[in-house]
């Protein structure tokens, strides 16, 4: 066990370094390597000058006096905005703030209640993304894994082969791509579902009506997501299970005269479960990050669309805030997975991950 603890400790350190690097890279890119700072400074000095010029007392001052005053005020305003430090130092400050999750205020974006706090903006969007993508991921995983198990039992049958091709084909095309085609088909031609959005305008007045309306808008993106991702689950499940089924210990279990059910659960599914469980956990976390283009296509106001809005307006605090939250989520999950994996697969504990 100490080997495993040491292994976990090392993983934790490495993941922490990864987290810092990812967040810092985002800070650099989102600020365009300091260019945004220059823009902001220019904007501040313009605003300050304008304000002073509107003051009649100011315009009566001599030229030199005016210039000195402008410089002074601009400097003060820049200091107030925290822009007086050179960018490398500011980037480190931003890094620290991001890592401590003080996400600050957005430059342009606001939540629907009008709050400019990055945390508020993100928290408003997160439930919507979870509603669509986490639900979709769970449905796709359940359906896909079930299909994969059936395929593994009937391996190389015609059913299995068609299911493989369908799975690969649907999985290769990204969800947004199916989204476009599905909107054309189900929304324009068949008129079954709305083409996008999360709620009708104006929203229904009754709570039941509201829920039904959201569900109605949810259907098409949900169907799309499940359709585009179940193939991953069925294909990997099938292959992992089939791989396990061909192991000698399964043959041995059969020779031992164990009943089929025992063989299936104890000798096939249990050894197959660590990679599948890992995938599910990762996919669930990833589902929180939404999907930028899918959300654009369906005009679904979640995290992905927020990301796109933030990037389009170069709203650095929001970009950084989103990245840091997602990076945290991901890294904590990866770490938890190490532990889960070890619980499921006794080989990990002693060999410290060498098996994977």
């Amino acid at each position: 066990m100490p080997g495993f603890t040491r292994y976990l400790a090392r993983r934790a350190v490495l993941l922490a370094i990864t987290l810092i690097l990812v967040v810092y890279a985002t800070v650099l890119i989102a600020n365009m390597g300091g260019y945004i700072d220059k823009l902001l400074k220019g904007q501040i000095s313009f605003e300050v000058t304008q304000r002073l010029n509107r003051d009649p007392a100011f315009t009566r001052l001599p030229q030199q006096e005016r210039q000195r005053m402008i410089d002074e005020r601009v400097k003060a305003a820049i200091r107030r905005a925290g822009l007086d430090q050179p960018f490398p130092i500011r980037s480190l400050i931003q890094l620290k703030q991001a890592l401590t999750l003080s996400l600050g205020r957005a430059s342009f974006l606001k939540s629907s209640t009008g709050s400019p706090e990055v945390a508020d903006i993100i928290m408003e969007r997160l439930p919507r993304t979870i509603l669509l993508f986490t639900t979709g991921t769970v449905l796709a995983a359940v359906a896909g894994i079930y299909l994969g198990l059936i395929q593994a039992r009937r391996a190389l049958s015609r059913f299995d082969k068609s299911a493989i091709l369908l799975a690969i084909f649907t999985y290769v095309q990204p969800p947004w791509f199916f989204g476009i085609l599905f909107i054309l088909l189900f929304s324009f031609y068949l008129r079954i579902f709305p083409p996008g959005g999360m709620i009708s305008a104006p929203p229904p007045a009754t709570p039941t009506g509201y829920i039904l309306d959201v569900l109605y808008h949810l259907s098409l993106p949900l169907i799309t997501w499940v359709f585009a991702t179940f193939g991953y689950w069925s294909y990997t499940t099938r292959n992992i299970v089939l791989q396990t089924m061909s192991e000698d210990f399964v043959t041995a279990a059969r020779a031992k005269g164990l009943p089929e059910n025992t063989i299936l659960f104890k000798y096939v599914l249990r050894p197959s479960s660590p990679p599948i469980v890992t995938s599910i956990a990762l996919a669930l976390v990833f589902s929180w990050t939404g999907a930028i283009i899918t959300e654009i296509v369906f005009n679904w106001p979640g995290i992905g669309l927020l990301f796109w809005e933030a990037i389009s307006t170069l709203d650095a605090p929001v970009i950084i805030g989103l990245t840091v939250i997602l990076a945290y989520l991901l890294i904590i999950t990866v770490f938890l997975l190490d532990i889960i994996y070890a619980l499921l697969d006794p080989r990990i504990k002693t060999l410290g991950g060498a098996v994977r």
Partner: protein
Amino acid sequence: MSEQPVGIKQIFKEVAKSKAGALGFALLVAMLILAMFTPILAPYNVARAWNDLRYWQDNPALAAPAWVRFLSPNSYSGTVTLSNFSLERSFHGQYTLVRRTGSFVYMYDVFPTEVRLLLDVNYTARKPRVIATLERPDGKGVTLYNGMPVKGENVVSVSVDPKYQKLIGYFLYEELGYVPAAIHPEIVLFAKKSKYMNDRQRADVLKGTYILEVDAISFEKNLSVQPKLIVYGNSYGIAGTDNYRRDLTVGLMWGAPVALAFGTIAAVVTVLLQVVIGAAGAWIGPRADEIVQRAADFFLVIPVLPILILINVVYTINIWLLLSWVILFSIVGGVTKISRSMVLQIREEQYVEAALSYGASKKRILTFHILPRIIPYTFALIALSAPSYVFLEAALSFLGLGDPNIPSWGRLLGQAFDAGALYYGWWWWVIFPALMIMLVSLGFTLLSYAFDKVVNPRLREE
């Protein structure tokens, strides 16, 4: 092991023999041929002209593909362009009169979508007066234009410019005794006389020969006028047009080299890099292996798409630069882990241990035992990852972020989406680019499936 085909040639042979492999090859070869013919059929300057909207003005906007006319002849029409005119020049004292006459036959069952008259006028100093009159098969004449055009090309938007709609209004007043609030010249001009002749649904098309007469009068002897009448239909070309009248066939053709080049190069380079780095790490020793694996963990955790989008928004980049960024973000990754575990596994195998024990050099073992086992997988992995790069390019172009200079399938899709093609049902603008992307990714996918079947005995039993 003994069943695994050795040698690249044999692998390719087996892949081509399987149904999936043959179909995948065929699809990709077809695309490759299309990509190679693109510069001939639609030269690069045509692609460059993609963003030059004047270049496309002879095409109808938002036209469905021309072949739908065969499927439903009574709801689609083609574009009629009249550019052959007879020339008659006469002198009346100080005046010079240039008369140009041309005719065309209109036989479609539906009304045109738009009518446009182009006047290319040339003179020395004084503007001529130009009058254009369309004589209909029923003998009625309608004035389309009456004015003093400037030197060079003049666009007379008969159907959309209120100035010219008014002229049609006069005609309607004569025929119906009143002027409706909204005038649709492209219908009125081609409708049988009735009280519905301004109503697309209820009017009847007046089929027959139409004559356009353009008179130019000037005080100058030196006067020329070259008219061109375009009666736009609602179908055009192999794949239709977009809202800027661009021929989607050109866009679709140029998408092929873009997608193939991007997908293939990105897949080959990233997979090879990842395979080599992963294998090298495992081969060199635990230290190198550890470094490579941690780097791979790092690259697996970074959100590549958002960062790429960010980079694209911040810096407008061309396709090669984009490719470089993509490769940079995929130096190590999932494939590194696969190749690494393969090397570790192969190294444990008895024949390698045996080779080591009888003193074969590491290099020899690498080239004779390890690489031959990994290379077949590399092919499968390349074919497997190519579609994801095709779609990555499509995704960025969809957002309007890719290389702005050349059209790509993703770009067409994005423009269709932005223009509301999904809500207005301009299906050709969506279906064709999507179909092209799908065919390429299907080609690669089938190929990777076939490769997987050959190199992975698990699928091969039968």
